[in-house]
């Protein structure tokens, strides 16, 4: 069975500080990992996916198969990054399962 774990429910940093949101997964096959974000009063939307290997809004995430992790990082947090962040895993039949989410607050 696939499982996504986000150990931190809340994370607070100051503007300009680095931020890392943790995500660990368990899956027997080769997964596709995603980060979704939900800004206040907006719908859930894709932030980035590991296969793209791109930086979106300054965020990056590297898939570490040895540690089964897909942590989200940004070197300099901005106030507009405050949101709910969800890590998600898609398995072989295109199912998409989410972690519990981390609420990031960036303080001025």
């Amino acid at each position, binding site marked *: 069975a696939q499982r*996504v774990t*986000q150990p931190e*429910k809340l994370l607070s940093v100051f503007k300009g500080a680095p931020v890392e949101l943790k995500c660990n997964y368990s899956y027997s096959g080769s997964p*596709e990992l*995603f980060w979704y974000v939900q800004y206040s009063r907006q*719908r*859930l*939307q*894709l932030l980035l*996916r590991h*296969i793209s290997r791109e930086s979106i809004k300054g965020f990056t995430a590297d898939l570490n198969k040895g540690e089964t992790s897909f942590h989200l990082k940004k070197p300099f947090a901005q106030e507009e990054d405050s949101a709910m962040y*969800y890590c998600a895993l*898609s*398995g*072989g*039949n*295109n*199912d*998409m*399962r*989410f*972690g*519990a*989410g981390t609420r990031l607050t960036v303080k001025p």
Partner: protein
Amino acid sequence: EAEVAQSPRYKITEKSQAVAFWCDPISGHATLYWYRQILGQGPELLVQFQDESVVDDSQLPKDRFSAERLKGVDSTLKIQPAELGDSAMYLCASSLAGIRTEAFFGQGTRLTVV
């Protein structure tokens, strides 16, 4: 820009009543998902359709929940009878056919059972 549409946005119902939610996915998206999101938790997959067929409904409480996507386009999720513990946000999402494609979400329906 095409979006997933859901209705109603909010629903208040009494326990033991029936309630239904509707979802219209992005045109051309073969995969449709229904999720339940309880306050403070992540979205929980209830059912996944590929066209009109159910791919996964292992987490759907089938004694009271049902879902259909008769023509492989829009979908309805029904609860009968509703219970207090069903109060949650119900999210619909859709994606293109294929392996591990991005899911696009609707605004959700906030259900309150009283």
